[in-house]
């Protein structure tokens, strides 16, 4: 896992906001108030990682999940997904960066088109453009033309060195740049990041369809997430059908393989049955098979085990982890159950009223919670051990309404350690307290 977490993130969520208007008014249905379901949330999910979103009902965790799979459109903020249909690198000549180039690749990884160029500060934009087109002709048709390591290429007698973008960024030292130019370089570096990522909000048409292939979702209620009028085959094959992949017999074979993979054996006895003939655990396995059938890179799992019985729940959790190991999928695991999150997630974020109040490696957050809300949440979880005596949680009141919250710490009304500052100032920002353990609290 350690090797994965150092990789560039697969999903980057930046200052994500989702406000739901509450319609009021007699004559004109004007929206006067907003439910701040997700309010300025930022996090990253790395390839092959399970990232947990934990919180009580109404904290915005499900809304966040739906935003990530584009079931909802964000009010503000960005969701970036790493674009695998593009390779990006920095072109350097004599150790001097000319700029960044993004080449679009086809399904086999062969470059087919110059997607974007971004000339470095002070470099000649036209020259970079020319280089990019020549590079494309040199590299076109070569599968995996650009590996993860820097390569040198001769173009018209000029020797250009190509460095993968992420590697360039991690190696580049701003200090090496003259102080007066630093601001321009910094801005350029930030812009290069967008080269590798696609803004989910702007997707439409064929790229959206491609996005739908890479991102899937598993829902909480296995009784409701499968259409009762469709057979298991139709349900699992639906992603293939809407993406027009394969013939019907090919799809049938593929569905059978998938069912076997999720432990529904023999598959032919499940293919043409209706969801109501299956138990809850089996249904959730069908939902998993359906999500996995088009090889997604990223799956949002919205409380996939909360409706299942304990003895069945473990099996489904283990299945999800096995599939992750096998296919290198990333999960956004949404749950209200910290104990489950502890077993499933490498990192978790605790949400409260649309805000992330604490985020970090799971064990670290659970063993050493810093935010008073996280502490209360962990203290309130019953322990399956009669000898363990918990102290009752002393937290004032109920969760307040997310309707137009006042501009102060969201937890202020119930916080045992709140001070005057918490009321005066805006909601505290997430700050790194070391080791990737972020907390949003003035008093920690």
């Amino acid at each position, binding site marked *: 896992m350690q090797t994965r977490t150092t990789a560039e993130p697969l999903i980057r969520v930046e200052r994500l906001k989702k406000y739901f208007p509450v319609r009021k008014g007699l004559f004109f249905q004007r929206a006067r108030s907003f439910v701040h379901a997700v309010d300025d949330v930022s996090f990253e999910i790395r390839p092959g990682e399970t990232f947990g979103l934990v919180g009580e009902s109404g904290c915005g965790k499900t809304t966040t999940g739906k935003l990530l799979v584009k079931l909802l459109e964000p009010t503000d903020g960005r969701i970036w997904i790493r674009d695998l249909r593009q390779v990006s690198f920095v072109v350097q000549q004599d150790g001097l960066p000319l700029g960044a180039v993004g080449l679009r690749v086809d399904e086999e990884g062969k470059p087919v088109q110059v997607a974007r160029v971004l000339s470095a500060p002070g470099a000649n934009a036209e020259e970079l453009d020319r280089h990019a087109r020549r590079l494309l002709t040199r590299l076109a048709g070569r599968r995996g033309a650009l590996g993860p390591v820097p390569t040198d290429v001769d173009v018209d007698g000029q020797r250009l060195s190509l460095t993968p973008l992420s590697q360039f960024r991690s190696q580049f030292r701003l200090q090496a740049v003259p102080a007066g130019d630093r601001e321009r370089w910094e801005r350029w570096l930030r812009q290069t990041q967008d080269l590798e990522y696609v803004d989910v909000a702007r997707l439409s048409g064929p790229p959206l369809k491609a996005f739908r292939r890479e991102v899937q979702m598993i829902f909480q209620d296995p009784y409701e997430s*499968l259409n009762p009028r469709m057979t298991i085959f139709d349900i699992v094959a639906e*992603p293939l059908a809407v993406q027009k992949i394969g013939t019907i017999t090919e799809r049938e074979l593929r569905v059978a393989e998938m069912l076997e993979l999720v432990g529904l054996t023999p598959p032919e006895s499940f293919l043409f049955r209706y969801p109501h003939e299956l138990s809850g655990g089996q249904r959730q396995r069908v939902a998993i098979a359906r999500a996995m059938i088009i090889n997604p890179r990223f799956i949002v799992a919205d409380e996939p085990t909360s409706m299942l019985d304990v003895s069945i729940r473990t099996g489904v959790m283990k299945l999800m982890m096995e599939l992750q190991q096998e296919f290198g999928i990333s999960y956004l695991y949404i749950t209200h159950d910290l104990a489950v999150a502890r077993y499933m997630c490498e990192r978790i974020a605790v949400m409260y009223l649309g805000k992330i109040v604490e985020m970090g490696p799971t064990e670290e957050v659970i063993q050493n919670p810093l935010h008073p809300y996280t502490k209360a949440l962990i203290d309130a979880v019953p322990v399956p051990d009669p000898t363990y005596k918990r102290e009752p949680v002393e937290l004032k009141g109920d969760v307040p309404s997310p309707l137009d919250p006042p501009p102060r710490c969201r937890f202020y009304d119930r916080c045992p350690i709140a001070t005057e500052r918490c009321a005066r100032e805006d909601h505290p920002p997430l700050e790194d307290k070391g080791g990737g353990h972020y907390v949003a609290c003035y008093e920690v």
Partner: protein
Amino acid sequence: MAVPAPPLKKPPKGRHLEAPWRARLRLLRRGLAGSWGMFWESRIGPLGLFIIAFYGLLALAHPILMATVWADERDVYDPKHGYDPQIIYGGFDGRLQSTVAPGSDDYYVDANGDGRPDYIYAGWDGVLQSKAVGDDKYRGGPAPPSLRHWLGTDPWGRDVFSQLAFSARAEFFLGVMAALITVVIGTLVAAISAYYGGFVDTFFMRLADVVLLFPVIAFLIVLGSMFQLNLYSLAVVLGVINGFGGITIVLKSQALSIKVRPFVEAAKVAGGSHMHIIVRHIIPNLLPLSFLYMMFNVTSAIFSEAVLSFFGILNIDMSWGIMVQMANIAGYLQGGAITKAWWIFFPASISITLLCAAFYFVGRGLDEIVNPRLRKV
């Protein structure tokens, strides 16, 4: 796709998967069998089905009888123009030959006292049905049921059973056609307005409000006075009016509850288009309810036709409603006259009632399958 396909295990050799179409056929058969079982248990559904089958046979019987038993006497048994000279015959000799009430003074008036009838009255209370006796076109009064005329004849001497059987076909046609139009419109409008919401939804819902409160019969009376409404146009008008009316509201609320269920979101995440979601997810889940409402709409269409015919608004030659209307204008329905010639309106009235009730019974039987809330236990 940029991600390589996962190394999936191949199924062992010799394992055959069932062809999808065959499996679907099997499921359909099983589903129908299961539904039939539940329908049968509702007890009320099969009762309705039995009545419908009876009238279906009656409708089929008419052309068959016309071609066989009645073939030689088509003029006698024609539901619209036929009359039986054996029953009413006001010949020139002046002897009234009627199986109804020979010698009854209800039937003729001897105006000039020559012992021969000058006017023939078909109605019991003196509604003039025929001109002078010399007119060979005159028709006589209603004859009671006999072997020759199982349900007797109407005031014009036409065979009531033939009329009844002939009309059954028209009733089925009208009811099913109107209900089909209603259900197709209702389902589509409901699915679309629930799915898209916004202006489309507001428009259709306000329209449904208007239609719902529309006094349909009153409206059709007004409409019928302006246009010649025949069976086809009536079916279309009724179908369209009902299609935009109450059924839309019911189906839309159902469609709304389907729309928010997670499988619709799952389809969206899989990349399903709006069309795909409406056609594959919303409409299939609406169809059972649509089918149920279709049954109720058959009832309402048949009933509307009967009522409009009773008012003489429609341009239809023969139907159960018209049979009752004719009995009424001949005065056989009012007051004490109702016992004089029961056969000319009773079979038609009871048929309207029974066939309407039968479709309603079937609807209620289906209700027990479609609405789990009504299921026993």
